[in-house]
């Protein structure tokens, strides 16, 4: 089962979606983008709620464009579940089910036995989404579309249901399109990520490829790379791979001279960085390490770029601390630090620290982005 989108466009008022070309195999493709970027439009086009102005949608060899919703065999889980309020949970699932065994099976898989005879109004948000998922799967669709199904849930329930979805998706042998604006959910569930911006695909690739090698500034920022700087390629590192890049007064050594985004980069530009060319320098905060200024430089750290700086600000984000360190030349590097490290270093505003940036954690993007 494969979904193939080609040249898909849809204009709606001021907003233009596409053209989008995309192939989804039997995998989970997490579609990630800010609100208003066209994620839901993508799902609506595949589901048949909206008709494209041009392009084709082929599912399992069948052209879907022009077919009514009911003939598409496209399963959709809506944002708030869209359960029929006048039916019990069981009736909702039975509505589409091909057999009673399937209802029982889905109720068991999604742990719905206790709530089957209740109406949607009396269900919790998490239960509603489970019922909605069961109802969609009961129709045995050829593809599963999910429109931010976890966005209205409280954090603990969201996390639990996300983990369950992960297991459930693995058991499905159909393409899954999962739309979300939450990067954590996208990377946790997606076999691949598709980053959407202003109705176009900015980058498609595995979570690690997209997170570690963003193809554009937008992707870098949207996937949590807060350290995005303008830089210039200074010179090649003598006798090996990598270049020196100049960012303000600081010079960073990278381990690669490749400035392409990734294999699936939207720009498609790749190649060696010529000295003097402008690049965007991306460093993910989780790759930035902090050390006391008086720590002895060990073997590993010798390889890393090292600068000293002062803590300008820090935030406790629960699982980790976010520390902004002001280094030479007014440059501010953000590091995410686990609580034990934070406590060991005794970090507070004004603390002096040594900042380590491993060369392999520096990603370069060429300055060929289309202007927005």
């Amino acid at each position, binding site marked *: 089962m494969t979904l193939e989108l080609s040249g898909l466009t849809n204009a709606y008022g001021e907003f233009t979606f596409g053209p989008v070309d995309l192939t989804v195999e039997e995998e989970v493709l997490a579609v990630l983008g800010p609100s208003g970027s066209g994620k839901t439009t993508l799902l609506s086009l595949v589901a048949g709620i909206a008709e494209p102005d041009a392009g084709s949608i082929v599912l399992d060899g069948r052209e879907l464009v022009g077919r009514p919703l*009911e003939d598409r065999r496209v399963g959709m889980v809506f944002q708030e579940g869209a359960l029929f309020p006048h039916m019990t949970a069981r009736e909702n699932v039975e509505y589409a089910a091909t057999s009673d065994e399937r209802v029982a099976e889905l109720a068991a898989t999604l742990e719905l036995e206790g709530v089957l005879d209740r109406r949607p109004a009396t269900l919790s948000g998490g239960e509603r989404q489970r019922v909605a998922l069961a109802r969609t799967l009961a129709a045995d669709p050829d593809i599963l579309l999910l429109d931010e199904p976890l966005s209205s849930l409280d954090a603990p329930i969201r996390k639990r249901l996300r983990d369950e979805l992960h297991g459930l998706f693995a058991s499905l042998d159909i393409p899954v399109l999962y739309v979300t604006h939450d990067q954590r959910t996208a990377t946790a569930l997606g076999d691949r990520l598709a980053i959407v911006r202003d109705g176009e695909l900015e980058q498609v690739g595995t979570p690690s490829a997209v997170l570690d090698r963003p193809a554009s500034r937008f992707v870098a920022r949207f996937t949590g790379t807060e350290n995005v700087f303008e830089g210039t390629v200074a010179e090649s590192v003598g006798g090996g791979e990598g270049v020196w890049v100049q960012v303000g007064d600081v010079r960073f050594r990278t381990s690669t001279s490749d400035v392409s985004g990734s294999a699936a980069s939207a720009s498609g530009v790749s190649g060696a960085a010529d000295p003097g060319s402008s690049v965007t320098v991306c460093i993910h905060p989780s790759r930035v390490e902090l050390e006391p200024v008086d720590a002895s430089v060990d073997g590993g750290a010798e390889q890393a770029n090292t600068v000293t700086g002062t803590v300008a600000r820090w935030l406790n984000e629960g699982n980790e601390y976010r520390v902004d360190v002001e280094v030479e030349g007014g440059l501010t590097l953000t590091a995410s630090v686990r609580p034990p490290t934070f406590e060991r270093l005794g970090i507070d505003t004004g603390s002096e620290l040594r900042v380590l940036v491993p060369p392999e954690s520096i990603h370069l993007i060429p300055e060929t982005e289309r202007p927005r």
Partner: protein
Amino acid sequence: MATEPTGSTDSTQPTKSTHARRLGSADWLSIALVLGGLLLVYYFAPLLSLFLSASPSEVLGRLGDPSVRSAATTSLLSASITTVVATVFGLPLAYWLARAETPWKNGVLAVVVLPLVLPPTVGGVVLLTVFGPNTLLGGTAAAAGLPLTRSLAGVVLAQTFVASPFVVVTAKAAFESVDRTLEHASRSLGKSRWATARNVTLPLAGPGILAGVTLAFARAMGEFGATMMVAYYPRTMPVEIWVSFQSLGLDSAYPVAILLVVISVAALLVLNTVASNPWR
């Protein structure tokens, strides 16, 4: 408001103004209550006075009058047929009006509302130009043995013209209140438009639709202007009241009027019982 007192202590100032504000809002509330209450009295007092104008035995006595019984039968029968016709023809139009996204929509809605704003007698005149005995349609139908004026069919035609917009307008609002996402969900589960309408849209819009049907029935029961123009015979109850009033005076109209009120209220009660919403 009085000028702000100067030199007063800080502690008394806020208490005073709060008190004044509360008094002011209470005054507005009582004025609103009096206004609404007066209107309620205006609705109810004449009805009460009507029921006091004729003794129950008088009313029951008039029930024995064949012309009154015939009028009651005609009214109930014609209003029921009208309600069914208005519902069968009105619901599809209401659904289209609720869901269509064309600029034509407002024009169509204006046409639907037209019979509501037209004086009923003018409605009757308009209908006569199409269904009258000397028109092509009316003449052909009369020749075929189904006269469209001075017949039960004529009564139904007049009542439908005046009463069916209530079904369309009310059901349109009811359909609009049903989340389209639910229809999309149903269809994406492989259910046809018709199955979706029957299983999802209609049950959810049901209470609103029944309100419209009830209104249409009540309007049909009370229809006088257009009915009198199109079908003076067979007499409906409003026409019978008019005839009694004209020929025998007000006193003789009272019992028939009371009967009409009782029949209408009873019919509405029945409709509303059927309309009770099981999942609320």
